[in-house]
């Protein structure tokens, strides 16, 4: 079976053609060698990083954005989503903190991608003191 795939390694966007012949993946139309491992990985076990959110107990910041620390098999994305949608974070976590260790035995962790403690510096009121010129 011949499969067409657009290479996403660089902006050239080669239209790769992949065929399984005699126990080997045969990749054609790649203008550079980097397209070949990409195509084989895509055909055998495509990997993706996953970004999502988990619930928090903070009323002003109801969702914590998270991501996987590395790519996981694409086929596992929906199962990992189920886990993420079942948990709740109540600690003031920071960017990079581990929220779930070794999710589904992938060896990959779920990391916070935002501070719950004063996100983006929090609200800024200091410049709101009564000004010299009120109208």
């Amino acid at each position, binding site marked *: 079976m011949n499969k067409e795939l*657009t290479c996403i390694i660089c902006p050239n966007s080669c239209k790769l053609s992949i065929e399984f012949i005699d126990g080997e993946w045969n990749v054609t139309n790649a203008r550079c060698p980097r397209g070949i491992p990409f195509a084989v990985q895509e055909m055998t076990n495509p990997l993706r990083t996953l970004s999502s959110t988990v619930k928090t107990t903070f009323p002003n910041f109801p969702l914590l*954005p998270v991501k996987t620390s590395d790519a996981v098999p694409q086929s596992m994305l929906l199962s990992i989503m189920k886990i993420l949608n079942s948990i709740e974070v109540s600690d003031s976590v920071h960017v990079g903190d581990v929220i779930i260790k070794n999710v589904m035995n992938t060896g990959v962790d779920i990391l916070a*991608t*935002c501070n719950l403690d004063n996100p983006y510096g929090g609200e800024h009121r200091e410049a709101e003191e009564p000004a010299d*010129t*009120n*109208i």
Partner: protein
Amino acid sequence: MKSIYDVTVIGGGPAGLAAAKGASSKGASVLIIERESLLGGILKQCIHDGFGLHRYHAPMTGPEYAEKEYQQLAPFSLDISTQTYVININSMNDSFELLTTSRFGYRTIHTRNIILATGCRERTAKQVFIHGSRPAGIFTAGTAQYYINRMGYLPTKRCVILGSGDVGLIMARRLTLEGATVLGVFEAKNEPSGLTRNLHQCLEDFDIPLSLSTTVTRVFGEERLNAVEIAKVDSSMNPIRGTEKIIACDGLILSVGLIPENEQAELINVQLDPSTHGPMITQDFMTSVPGVYSAGNALQVHDLVDYVSEGAECAGIAAAQTSRPIPMLIPIQKGSGLSTLVPQHLNINLPYQNVISYFRVTRTYQNATLTIYVDDRPILSKRYVRVRPPEMERLVVQYSALSEASIIRWTLEGEIV
């Protein structure tokens, strides 16, 4: 609060943060005015990966990038006003008076320079002429993204997406991951607007069909959307009679383009470029009004935040200069093959040895050559294997020996795909 600031940055998204950093690093007194309660702009809801590859040489999510940009401000003492909106600007002699509104009421702020970093807005259903009733369930992609990523609401269970811009593609994936069914993405143009990577990882990964030369022509439903009508369009984008189909759904997500927001720029008659919908600028990011600078998506819609930050930082550094030479402008002419070109002018009384320039092409070309001419003499020629309208190109240009009579012209020629 200072009686007068050197630089006031309107907008606290990625452009505003980088502009504030640039200006502060040159010793200017800086105020950031942000209308939301938190800084970070749209990055707060862009939880997906892929930001920062150029600026930080590592892939990050939007929130991580925003946090990193905020932390760049740590060494500086600057003022930040959140939940504050600029409602009027008056030009004075060598300075500006901003009228703002906030929780504390109206206030006037004096500043020597302004950086407009107000971002862009999404086109809405009204701007794309969809007929029918006005039921709930029709969202711009950014609004749907806000509901899902910031509030935790799933705004639709079965939806169609109109427009194949990157935000629409990313929302197709996001909605699917959160359990909604995306019935299809419809694009009126004959080629997709989004990046190839997003077509692959957001649509193909989840078997979401993409239909080109197809648009949504009507919406149905009383209180809530219950169906949309789609139709094929001809080459001039008019729906073709007899190709209509009804699709039952409870959501229509619009990803039909972004328009720079220049409400504040228009208050002081900043000259806008009809092709970018943003201000015309010189190489220091100054607009047609001396002391007013523009950066980020208010200047032109970018597809990479890294370039937003880079340009905004330059704008901040320029706005912090205490003396400004009298402008002597020469236009940079946009020749065949180019749809946008920024900066639009060079000020030859400023340095022009390293001019960061950005352009987009009118259509997809392969084996293309970009040539820059000064007085019909080519000074730079660059080959592109493939250039596409959705991908903004960046180029640093070394101009030399320009005079007020010089004519600069950029053209792009290549094979049409």
